[in-house]
């Protein structure tokens, strides 16, 4: 949370808050990292990766506090950076894993490459462009001697027509319900019931979900929603207790205890 502390109480708070709130302004996690890196105002090869990882993790924590849900890409990167951070802080080498230096170098390369492409894009757009800075003949005399073929049909038109056939065919085909991958409430109740006996004390509901549930898009959301409903069902049946410290704080559960 160093990022937040830095910002608090100084005159610089405003832009950082704006940065925090505007996750939609980034084209993904590397773009976000690149923005944070630019704030360090040093050459990308000399960037403090540790500082960058901390800033990113603070950003993601804050964004999740405000928005609850964040695209999986950002969370994957957060996990990656959390790992990198631990490797940078712990000198103890792990035999089978890439060294912290290798990981940091890979990240630096990603940042440099994206920065290079963003720069290239800007330079490309700044070129004298046809239709804006340079103009073609306004009144072409339409002499088809240039035409290799009698018809002016491009690959895009061809592919678009084919896509249209597919979409039309799909509309007139018999309706079939795709097999759902969503997690049902019944499954969630069964899973939660089975785990209740093993809970020593309060546990976060999210911690009880199957490992690796995040990052599965709609499936992940159905898992969370079904588990929450299941917890409510079990509470109603008197098998479980629920609590939450403040609005949007993690929901905690434990097995109902017999009152002494």
């Amino acid at each position, binding site marked *: 949370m160093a990022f937040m502390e830095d910002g608090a109480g100084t005159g610089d708070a405003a832009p950082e808050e704006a940065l925090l709130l505007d996750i939609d302004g980034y084209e993904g996690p590397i773009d976000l990292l690149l923005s944070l890196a630019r704030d360090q105002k040093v050459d990308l090869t000399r960037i403090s990766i540790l500082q960058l990882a901390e800033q990113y993790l603070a950003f993601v924590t804050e964004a999740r506090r405000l928005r609850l849900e964040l695209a999986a890409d950002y969370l994957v990167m957060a996990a990656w950076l959390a790992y990198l951070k631990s490797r940078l802080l712990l000198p103890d080498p792990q035999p089978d894993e890439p060294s912290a230096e290798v990981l940091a170098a890979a990240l630096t390369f990603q940042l440099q490459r994206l920065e290079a492409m963003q720069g290239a894009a800007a330079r490309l757009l700044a070129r004298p462009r046809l239709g804006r800075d340079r*103009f*073609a*003949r*306004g*009144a072409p*005399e*339409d*002499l*088809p*001697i240039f*035409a*290799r*073929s*009698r*018809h*002016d*049909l*491009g*690959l895009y*038109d*061809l*592919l*678009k*027509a*084919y*896509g*249209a*056939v*597919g*979409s*039309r*065919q*799909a509309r*007139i085909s018999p309706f079939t319900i795709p097999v759902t991958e969503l997690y049902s409430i019944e499954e969630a109740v069964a899973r939660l019931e089975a785990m209740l006996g093993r809970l020593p004390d309060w546990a976060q509901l999210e911690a009880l979900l199957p490992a690796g549930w995040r990052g599965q898009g709609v499936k992940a959301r159905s898992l969370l929603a079904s588990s929450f409903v299941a917890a409510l069902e079990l509470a109603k049946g008197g098998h479980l207790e629920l609590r939450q410290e403040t609005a949007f704080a993690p929901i905690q559960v434990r097995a109902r205890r017999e009152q002494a």
Partner: protein
Amino acid sequence: MSDLFDSDFQLIRLLEAILFSSAEPVAESVLQERVGAVPVRPLLAQLENLYRHRGINLVASGGRWAFRTAADLGDRLRTEIEVTAKLSRAAVETLAIIAYHQPVTRAEIEAIRGVATSKGTLDILMEAGWVMPGRRRETPGRPLTWVTTSDFLDHFGLGSLRDLPGVDDLRAAGLLDRSAPMPRIPGLSVEGEG
């Protein structure tokens, strides 16, 4: 004098670019506005003179100016191929289906499109040099199949038929609805589909 010359030169360049890029002949009054205080007529006269013997000439008619190809070149520019006609949607779809499903019979094309294909559609594609008859299918009635030609690949800049984008590519490019499958021939089992 040098300044004046430079300025005239730049104004003539500007007039040249305006007249080149304009879709319509441009009224002299409009051109006058673009060059400001300098009288436009002598500038236009210089430009006209510059192009007098070239392949394109500057011509005025009804107080409006335009570049035109020189009249004496008319014969050599005359069209050898008739004017390009826009292909009908039926023709474009039929071509796409042949490209993806070849060799494919006319009945199969109709089954995919869901409507009858007029005889003229295949003729147009054959005249364009993009499709040709392939082998006959060894099924009852021995129907003719259709395939694409090498001109087809040339025209669309494809190295080979394998370079046609697949279903995932089309979907990712936004050309196929997310839920829609690749068009398929009804009644024919397609590999990879349940």
